[in-house]
């Protein structure tokens, strides 16, 4: 079992956890994730490893509280033991490409952390474009700045950086400076799709990290499957990163909606039971 050592709120409905799980910390590479299970009655959900400290035996998880399980996790006190399995998935393929652009939206900024770090260590010029609905939802700015050579911010409401979407900033960047050597676009499926559509005509290699529904995370159930280049792939073992130009994002988005009704139901019940403690989150995510 793994222990939650530290928990802090980094933005509305975003928490950072430091979890002690030495075997996972030791093996973690950029692009990998863990499956977590809070308790006997819980569901297994995938969470990207945002950072790891092999010496301390800890990993960092950044969790957006959007459903019952992530909200419930937010209420667990430090010291709680949970089940953590990993590191799973194929690590990011890192090379010295030249200029690498990291495009992150919302919770997708967390998986970019280890990728940006690895890109920089490999000698790339890293440009990060981070966006969110409003300023305080553009998370992990300091951490990303430390790992990037240049930063561009966007917000939907214009409260920080330029007003608009990350894709607007990426389009302008390509226009001004020509196409980068590689783009990593991670965020909501709709954003990753827009990034892929934008870079496709330029032929810029573009990587997306897919967030499909998972159970085991080891290739055993197939519920995470997506279509990539006309072929069925299991996100948990073949991915989570794929050539964004080949991914059928429409299918991914449909499959992500498989259990919306049940998810809403579970969240409603949870919020009813924990009204006092979870309202702040509910306001942000409802």
């Amino acid at each position, binding site marked *: *079992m793994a222990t939650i050592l530290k928990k802090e709120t980094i933005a509305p409905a975003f928490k950072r956890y430091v979890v002690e799980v030495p*075997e*996972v910390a030791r*093996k973690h590479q950029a692009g990998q994730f863990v*499956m977590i*299970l809070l308790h006997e*009655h*819980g*569901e*297994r959900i995938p969470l990207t490893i945002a950072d790891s400290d092999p010496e301390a035996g800890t990993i960092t998880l950044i969790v957006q509280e959007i459903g*019952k*399980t992530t909200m419930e996790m937010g209420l667990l006190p430090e010291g709680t033991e949970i*089940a*953590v*399995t*990993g*590191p*799973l998935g194929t690590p990011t393929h890192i090379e010295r490409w030249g200029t690498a652009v990291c495009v992150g939206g919302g919770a997708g900024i967390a998986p970019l952390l280890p990728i940006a770090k690895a890109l920089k260590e490999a000698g790339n010029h890293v440009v990060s474009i981070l966006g969110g609905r409003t300023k305080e939802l553009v998370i992990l700015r300091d951490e990303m700045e430390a790992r990037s050579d240049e930063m561009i911010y966007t917000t939907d409401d214009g409260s920080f950086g330029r007003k608009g979407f990350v894709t607007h900033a990426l389009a302008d960047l390509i226009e001004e400076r020509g196409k980068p050597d590689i783009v990593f676009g991670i965020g909501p499926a709709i954003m990753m799709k827009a990034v892929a559509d934008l870079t496709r005509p330029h032929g810029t290699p573009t990587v997306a990290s897919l967030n499909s529904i998972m*159970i*085991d995370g*080891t*290739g*055993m*159930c*197939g*519920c995470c*499957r*997506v*279509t990539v280049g006309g072929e*069925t792939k299991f996100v948990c*073992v073949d991915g989570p990163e794929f050539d964004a130009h080949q991914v059928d994002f429409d*299918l991914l988005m*449909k*499959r992500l*909606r*498989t*259990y919306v009704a*049940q*998810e809403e*139901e*579970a969240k409603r*019940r949870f919020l009813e039971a924990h009204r006092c403690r979870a309202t702040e989150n509910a306001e942000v995510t409802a």
Partner: protein
Amino acid sequence: MTTGKLSPKERMQIPRQPMPCQDPHERVLNFAEVALGLTPELARREAERCLECKDPKCVAGCPVGIDIPRFLVEIREGRFDEAIRIVKETNTLPAICGRVCPQEDQCEQVCIVGKKKDPVAIGRLERFVADWERDHGTVELPVCEEPTGFKVAIVGSGPSGLACAAELARNGHSVTIFEALHKPGGVLVYGIPEFRLPKEIVRWEIENLEKMGVEIRCNFVVGKTATVEELMGEEWGFDAVFIGTGAGLPYFMGIPGENLIGVYSANEYLTRVNLMKGYRFPEFDTPVKVGKRIAVVGSGNVAMDCLRTALRLGAEEVICLYRRTRAESPARLEELEHAEEEGIDFRWLTSPVEILGDDEGRVRAVRVIKMELGEPDESGRRRPKPIEGSEYTIDIDEIVMAIGQGPNPLVLQTTPGLELNRWGNIVVDEVTMMTSIPGVFAGGDIVTGAATVILAMGAGKKAAAGIHDYLLGKGGLGGEPRREVAAPPAG
């Protein structure tokens, strides 16, 4: 009531005793066990049917060679404690095997009584004595030898891993099981449903293993959390490894529409329901879709489990699509009969060609084609051929693919030097169960391809013997025993 003095003729006159079962109409509304178990009276009566053959065919028919006539006599005489002791000499998990073995293809197939009448119900009697022992709290744990100082890692906690662990622990080796999921048991917990194998029984068997000193580390994916090579290295320090990772990779058909919402692999469907207890959502957090009209493709045990699970989740119509006929169905006879009693709509000689979806990407129908049986194929079964122009559409809102599983490549890809056959299964020495890597052994579905609980268990036991010999430098094994062999640390 029994005398033991009946003549063979009189024994032959006793009819096979019926298994008390939940009523079909009632049981489709719950997940409780269907077969309720024999009473002591029924069991003794059933045991009385055994002719105590001089050359008992049933023993040869049992993959692990249980001394069947001997334990049946004990049951007949009401000495149930003695009966279970005999069963456990050869079978580590009798409460499980008694429930899930395909007896009609094994011991009961060759039972002499079966030549003229129904064969002796060996499986039910095996289950009876195992249950009796558990209910009476008279369990004797096997006595473990003095610690040898050797450490063995078992990868996977299915029947092969559990059996291997038990044997090794008995021989005094220190055993750690690494399991990828959060609960041990393999297919016994994530695949086979509660109504056929109560999870309580699996849990109880595993607790006994822990009492014997076996350590179980869940949430540990070998190949990811640590590789086999690393387990054998300095840091982990295991002297031998057993790979029993099963056949966990779901196959799909490769037909259009298979990624629509509402298309499940059998593994996903059963895992959501059994392992994650989706049928108790929202009390448990994992949801499972509850369709009204559900099709399941395939007709093996896995398919039967999906069909009957669908009914219990509340489906109104459940349809089995199988490209061969009932006669070729690989499922246990009892499961097939139970499924029929419960009202499954079996469409034999029918195969899906396409799954159709609505605008939101949800399944709305399946297009199928009728088949006929042609010439026998390599397996000796007549090959099904599509009948041209016989396609038709069935409206459904969910479909489960139960057409088989292959080896999960996670361990295989991360273990250089491990020899595989052309299906991706591990190649082992048939006697020792050692793989191409010295000190690394394998058994169960990962070696044979998807097979049975009893074969996996038998393989685990056999590998344990191979590992024991290897560790002690016996049996002329190819591997160079490690340093510890020369001087096993005491205690």
